[in-house]
Each structure stands twice: as structure tokens, then as C-alpha cells.
């Protein structure tokens, strides 16, 4: 077993014991008065409109797909940001080309009406 990982395992054990102990004590101490209102998803909030496992409108998928792409593309900005000084103007030029391509993609999606909530 590689040493140096010992604190991590200790932490793991504490993390597993803590909820058991806390919930167990609470169970012993508190009065038990179950009622329908307490089983709602949001006990003190608005009544839930429907089950969370229902079907969503397809528009969310389009938003999600666009988000995934544009979000993940930023991954290429991080290496550049870290080595910005060393890369100099070459880095700036590369990132400019990269962002330009992304902007073209954005303009295309915009003109195609992908962002409209129809």
C-alpha cells in the first residue's frame, strides 16, 4: 500500500461513519409523526407539477447539444492560458484562428435559428 494515501483512507472512513452516526442519533432523539405533506419533494415549497422522470420537450436537447460543444471547446484555451508568455504571438494567432472558427459556427447556428425558442 503506498503510504501518503493513509490520510485519504482515514478521511474516507470518517466520511462513511459520520452520516450513519448522525442519522442514527437523530432517529433516537426525534419524535416520529409521519404525514403526507412531509413526503412532498419540496416540503415547504410549491406543489410539484409532475414527476421528474417525465419527458422533456426536445428544445432542451438542442440547447444541451449546443452547450456541450461550445463548453468543451474552451478546453483548448486552458493550455494556451497557462503557457501564454512562452507561446507569444504564435499562441495569440492560433487561438485567434480557433476562436474565429467557433464564431463562424456560432453565427451559423444563430442564422439557422437554433437559439430560438419556437
Amino acid at each position, binding site marked *: 500500500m503506498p503510504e501518503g494515501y493513509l490520510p485519504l483512507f482515514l478521511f474516507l472512513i470518517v466520511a462513511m461513519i459520520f452520516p450513519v452516526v448522525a442519522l442514527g442519533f437523530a432517529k433516537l432523539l426525534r419524535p416520529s409523526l409521519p404525514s403526507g405533506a412531509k413526503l412532498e419533494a419540496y416540503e415547504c415549497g410549491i406543489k410539484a407539477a409532475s414527476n421528474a422522470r417525465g419527458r422533456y420537450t426536445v428544445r432542451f436537447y438542442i440547447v444541451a447539444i449546443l452547450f456541450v460543444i461550445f463548453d468543451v471547446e474552451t478546453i483548448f484555451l486552458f493550455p494556451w492560458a497557462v503557457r501564454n508568455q512562452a*507561446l*507569444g504571438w*504564435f499562441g495569440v*494567432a492560433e487561438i485567434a484562428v480557433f476562436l474565429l*472558427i467557433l464564431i*463562424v459556427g456560432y*453565427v*451559423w447556428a444563430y*442564422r*439557422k435559428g437554433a437559439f430560438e425558442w419556437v
Partner: protein
Amino acid sequence: MPANLFPAPVEIFRFLPEIILALGGTLIMVLEALTGDRQPKNALGHVSLAALFAALVAAVAVHGSPGPAFSSMLLVDGFATFFRVVVIAVGILTVFSSYRYLSREGANTGEYYALVLFSVAGQGVMVTANELIMIFIGLEISSIATYVMAGLLRDDARANESALKYFLLGSFATAFLLYGIAFLYGATGTTNLTAIRETVLRADGPSPLLLGLAAALMLVGFGFKISSAPFQMWAPDVYQGAPTPVTAFMSAGPKAAAFAIFLRVFVTIFEPIGDRWEPIIWVFALASMTIGNFAALTQSNVKRMLAYSSIAHAGYVLVALCARSDIGTAAAMFYLAAYALMNVGAFAVVAYICGKGEKYVGIDDLAGLGSRRPAVAAALTIFLCSLIGVPLTGGFFGKFYIFKAALESKLIWLTVLGLLNSAVAAYYYLRMLVVMYMREPGEATENLEPLPAGLRTALFTSAAGVLLLGIFPSRILEFAVQSAKLFGR
């Protein structure tokens, strides 16, 4: 870190064909988005053709200044130029044969042409790649664009299914390939093919276990991509369901590019452990030929039959790889060029006959084509003869060189079994010819529209190409042998 990271102009020049294709594709997308539906008919298709022709010229021009580019990420050599020309030519023929089909299906959009350009650009990256990362990125650019093309007809349930299967199996294959790449990197500590080869050849080379694992996993990945048995099961469904011009494209372009990179990786990097993978390829080649040909015998759908035949043809090319010689590599190159032309041509004929919604794709629907449209029938005859391997066609010399290379490498049994397979194959191709010439015209051939100009160009160009490869094979073969000699050694 080197002081000047900017690439030299010559390096950008070596990458010019792909730059043209990528810019052309982007331009088409932007043009379509900005003009809406107001472009003149086929205008965006013409833009894509212009880009493809420019890329073709560039690819030939770049051959004049071979060498590495972008810190040796890409390598332009004869092998790369050969396949670049093949994949760009496939792109051109696809666009020509798509015009009428797309407007008939109401899908004549710029996206399609942009996707063709992106896919060809990806294949261009693949065939010039000299770096594992580039192989992966090129493969994915090409594949992802092709997945979308297969599902282009959004309301067609068959096309959806085809796209889904292509996508799932394609991604599955990519994961295997990638795992192989990871082990190759782990075994050698570099991702550059030239450096990997140097490491592999060193006396204290990489661990044989890791190298073998890498070769096995990459073999699975490539096996899927080139639809060789035992990884062929997706091909018939995907080829049958996809829109016919897309089938033509994906059975030729991505396949040729995948073979190119397959050859490059196995003939250069894994050559030192060749004794271990040769028997596996031997089995793959035989299984592909046998399964492809015998399954094709029972098909009634032309597209499905051609799909099985394309599996068989992958088997023939694997025979050339099995030979593990320069002449084998050259034979594979020649065969792939001939195969691309004859296959695109045959599918272009199907795209002409099939009618709206691909109603007429049965072999029986070819009945009477010979009397109704003699020119189309003649072109199809040339393609089928070439697929059989009749002399004076490109397919004949392709097979001839492959089996010659196999015999020189003492693969006698594989050659015999391969030749027997070719004889079986002749049966189902000849059946199409018989139906076409001997039978009375049916519903499909009675109501054929006149041959559109685009399709005519595609058909006659590929027919001429097949004949050219069959009558004057020596110059192409000479080029292939030269490139195979220099390559990787």
C-alpha cells in the same frame, strides 16, 4: 521550446488541399445561413465542386514539394498524394451524382455539400498523418461528417436506422483504435510515427506485450472501419439504409482513407512484429472474401448486394497487406483506386434507377435497362466487369497485382482461395448483367427520367477511369511502386 513556432510557408503549402476543403465547407455553410433559401439551384453544390477541384489541383501541385509539415505532424509523400487524389476524386464523383437525388428527395441543401467537403478534408488529414493524434482527428472529422450524411433524410426511417448503426459501430471502433493508440504511446513514449518506428527498431525496443496489445486493438478498430470480417456486420445495414449517393461515398472515400492509414501503421510501425499479425490478417482476408461473396449470392437488393461485395473487396486488399512487401502495398494502392471508381460508379447507377424514396433498389428493377438506357447499361457493365475482374478493366489489374504479390510472398493457399472466391463473385455480378440485358423492362425502367447532366458526368468519368486503369495500368502502378518503396523505410 523553439523560438519560432510559426510554420514555414512551405509547410502551409503542403497542407493546402485540406485548407481549401475546410474553407470551402465553411464558406458553403455561411453562404447558406446568410442567404436562406434564395440561392440559385445547385449553386452551393457548384461551390463545393469548385473547392474539390481546387483541392485536387493543390494535391497534385503539393506533390512537387514532398516532406513533413507542422513539426512532422503531417507527411506529404507519394503514398499520401496517391490517396489524397483518390479521396478527392471520390468526393467529386459523389457531388456529381448527388444533385438529382437530393432535389428529388427535397434535401438539396448546402449542409450536404459542406459535409462532403469536411469528410474529404478529414480523409486528407488521415492519409497525410504522421502522428497518432492526427490519425485520430482525421478519422473523426471524416467519420462524424459521414454519420450526419447517412442520416441526412431526417424523415426516412431507414436512413435514420442506417445512421444510428453507422454511428454506434463507428464510435465503438474508434474507441478500440484509440485504446490501441494509447498502448502504442505507452510502449514507445511518443506519438510521432517516425519516432515510434525508430523506437520499435531499437534493440532495447518497447515491451512486446504492449506493442502486441496495441497492434491487436488497432486491428479491431481498423477492421471495423474497413468493414472486414469478422467486423463486417454493420456494413450491409448501413449501406442499404443510407441515401444511395452517401452509400457510394462511404463505401469508397472513408474506406480508402482507412485502408491508407491501416497500411501506413502496419507496414511501418508494426512491420517488426509482422510474423505475429500476418496469420491474423490471413484469416481476416479469407473470412472477408468468403462471407462477403457467399452472402452477396442470396441478396435481392442491389445496395445490400454491393455492400457484401464491398466486404469481399476489403478481403482482397487484405490479401495484399498479408503479402507484407512493397509490391503488395503498391497492389493495394492500385486496387483501392480502381475499387473506389467502380464502386462509386455502380452506386451512381443505383442512384439513377432508384426513384423517389428509393422504391426501385431490387436487382429485378434493373430489368430492361439495356434496351431503355443503353449508355447507362454500358457504364454499369463496365463497373460490374471491373468488380468481377474481367481483363481491360481496372479491377482485373488490381486483382492480378494483388495475387501476384501474394504468390511472391508464398501465400499460395490464400491465392487459390481468393481466386475461387472471385469465381463465386462472378456469379452474382453476372446475374445483374443478365437481368439488365435479357429481361423485359419493368416498372422501374419504363418510367426513367432522362439521365441528368451531373449523373452523366459521374458515370462516364468513373467508367473512363476504370477503363483507363485497365488499359494503361503501368503508369499508375509505377507511381504506386515508387511511393511504396520510399514509404516508411
